[in-house]
């Protein structure tokens, strides 16, 4: 799948994985791809996002607001009151099934077969990566760059990344036009 990805696009995916891990999430969602695009820093996507006023800080804050933890702090306290140490449960589960396993199970994931070594993509982010190929083909590019991933994020339109962009006052059409303008294409 990543065969035609530029080094920048590969960097985005690598960073998305690291972001998911750092946030303790058991999946790589569109929100992590968005952080990956921003973190990559130099690509057309990063520049377009920056110009639209989107920063990693803004995205992280929104993720925190929008992604509810499976068990919140008060939940853990309530469970402790009836003798259940949820952190102990989590530690034992993650020992066997890897970090974020409980959250991943809740989400349903997008995987077939065991895949404990790495954090799997969510269905939506998988879809975005597939769409990035289509965006490249549409533009008659024979590579997939960060700009195609961003265009795909905007086209998919349903994921957390798209929601975060909307909540931050970015209009998908405007951002799409900005990316195409940077590519020297008429929107």
């Amino acid at each position, binding site marked *: 799948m990543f065969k035609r990805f530029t080094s920048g696009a590969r960097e985005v995916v690598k960073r998305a994985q690291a972001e998911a891990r750092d946030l303790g999430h058991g999946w790589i969602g569109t929100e992590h791809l968005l952080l990956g695009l921003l973190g990559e820093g130099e690509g057309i996507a990063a520049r377009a996002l920056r110009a639209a006023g989107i920063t990693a800080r803004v995205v992280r804050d929104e993720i925190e607001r929008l992604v509810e933890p499976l068990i919140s702090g008060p939940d853990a*306290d309530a469970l402790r009151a009836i003798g259940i140490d949820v952190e102990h449960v989590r530690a034992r589960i993650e020992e066997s099934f890897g970090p974020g*396993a409980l959250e991943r199970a*809740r989400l349903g994931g997008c995987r077939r077969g065991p895949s404990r070594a790495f954090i799997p993509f969510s269905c939506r982010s998988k879809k975005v990566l597939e769409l990035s190929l289509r965006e490249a083909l549409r533009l008659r590019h024979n590579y997939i760059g960060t700009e195609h991933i961003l265009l795909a994020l905007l086209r998919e339109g349903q994921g957390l990344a798209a929601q975060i962009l909307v909540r931050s006052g970015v209009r998908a059409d405007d951002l799409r036009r900005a990316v195409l303008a940077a590519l020297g294409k008429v929107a």
Partner: protein
Amino acid sequence: MSEATELAHAASSTDPETGLRAVAALRRLLESLEALQVQNARDHHWSWQDIATALGVSKQAVHKKHAGPRRRIGRAK
């Protein structure tokens, strides 16, 4: 146990807010654990019937609850 913790403990164990929150959280934890363990059993090639028996529910129930998304993904590929 200090007096303060003892008091806090006594209060929390009869406080409906705490008790109900614990039940709700436990239910979410349970749902998550069930999804994880069913997935793991499938990865180990357990049949839906065997999983249903282990969970003490009908094969239809477990299949309906856990087989859906996987099949959708399968078709999309």
